[in-house]
Each structure stands twice: as C-alpha cells, then as structure tokens.
C-alpha cells in the first residue's frame, strides 16, 4: 500500500428523512471543499454496500462521522465495517450547543439555514484539527 499523506475521512449520514440529514451533507461538503488536502469524503452508501476504496481508506485512516439524529447511523455503520471513528459528531448536539434551531425543510437551504451549516462545519473542522494533531 502506497499511502502518502495524513488525511481524515469524513463520513456524513445521508439522512434523507430529516432536515438535519441535508444539513449534515452541506456542512461536510463545506469542510471537504475548504480543506481538500486534509479531508476525504467517504460515501456512506458505498461504504455500506461494499465499496473497496471507501472501506480500505476507513481501515487505514482516521474517520470523523457526522450524524443528523440520535440513531447515529454513520457512526454505527463505520464502527461495524471498519472500526470506531476517531470522532462521532451529532448535529442535534451541535445545534443545541450553538443555540440554533434545526432547519425546517429537507432541501434548498438558503440564508436562513446558513448559520446552522456554518456551525456544523466549524465543529467538523475543529474535529479534523484535533484528529490530525493526534496522528
């Protein structure tokens, strides 16, 4: 295996049923776009369905999971399939910590949802920094 640089895998829940799922996706994407050298997206459905590349990465690099609800699918699936994540974030807990209400729509977020996306993205970025420091 020819692993070259330290990176963190970010696993977002797909959360189709709840607005926090979309919030998860957007916040994770924001961090991935702003920290391309340090973060890699792990596609959760592919990870679950047996994607060789997703699973190999998660076995060899630390992962941060971000879940939209207390069922914690991303954290549980990651632990089941490759090992305990380095950090497991919960969107409801992050919103509570920042005194923010969850979005009330499933899609097409706008200015009204920006604060929530930013807060979750910041917490993910903080977790990335912590994990990279530990590596």
């Amino acid at each position, binding site marked *: 295996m020819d692993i070259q640089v330290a990176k963190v895998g970010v696993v977002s829940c797909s959360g189709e*049923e709840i607005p926090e799922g979309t919030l998860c996706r957007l916040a994770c994407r924001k961090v991935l776009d702003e920290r391309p050298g340090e973060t890699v997206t792990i596609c959760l459905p592919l990870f679950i369905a047996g*994607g060789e590349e997703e699973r190999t990465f998660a076995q060899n690099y630390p992962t941060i999971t971000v879940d939209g609800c207390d*069922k914690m699918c991303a954290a549980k699936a990651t632990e089941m399939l490759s090992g305990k994540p380095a950090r497991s974030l919960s969107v409801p807990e992050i919103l509570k910590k920042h005194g923010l209400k969850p979005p009330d729509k499933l899609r097409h977020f706008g200015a009204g949802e920006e604060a929530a996306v930013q807060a979750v993205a910041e917490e993910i970025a903080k977790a990335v920094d912590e994990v990279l420091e530990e590596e």
Partner: protein
Amino acid sequence: MGKKHKKVVVLPCSGIGKVFGALARETAYELVERVRPGVATTTCLPLLVINDPEAVAKVKENPVITIDGCPKECARKSVEAAGGRVAKAHEAIKFYKEHKDLKPEGVAEVTETGRKLAEIAARELAKEVDELAAGEEK
C-alpha cells in the same frame, strides 16, 4: 391486479461525491414533497444497514423504487440486503442521458439545472409510483 399499497418508498442512494447521488436525492424529494405527496415516501438508507425496525418494515411492507447515483447500485443492494422488495431500480444518469440539455451540477445538492432535471425525472417516475400504489406492477 396485485395488492394495493398506501405508500410507495422512493429510496435514493444520496451518494456524496458524485452529482448523480445528489440528483437521485433531489428526484426523490420532488416525488415525496411535490409530485406524489402522501403516496411517495422515503427512508434513510443507512437505517436499513443498522437494522432499524421501522425502516426495515417500511421497505418490506411497501414496494420500493430505488434511484442510484452510479452503477454500484448501493440503494438497490441495501434494500435487498434488508429483505425489502425493489419493484423498480433506476440510475439517475439515465435522466441526464434523456435530457442532455440539463447537465446537473453540485455534489451535496444539485444547482438549478439539476433541480429542473429532477422535476422531469420525478414526473416520469410518478407513473411508476401510481402503478405500484394501485397494485399494477409490471
């Protein structure tokens, strides 16, 4: 005529990393929220993997339409692994191939042309939702 169903589950893969995952998700939402509200419903794909009883029951008791973002067919495979019945399986790229003028963009969420494409895709899939709900599955 087969059994009538109150609900038809539309399950996108929601793959993050490719635009067609986002297109699959947007198409499912169009069906659930606008085109066939009350009949089309969805659930979270990872809930099936962690054996959430409600999610598993949903896909076992109702016909399922899966929309996958790539040929790896994660949504279809996850439903089948949970013991659910995939009545129709689609790949989101098919809708782009049929409407080449609407090239979707965006990875976490599609942008404007993707939304237009999702609207068209949802209207095309509405017929399948109606047939499955009426027990007229072909």
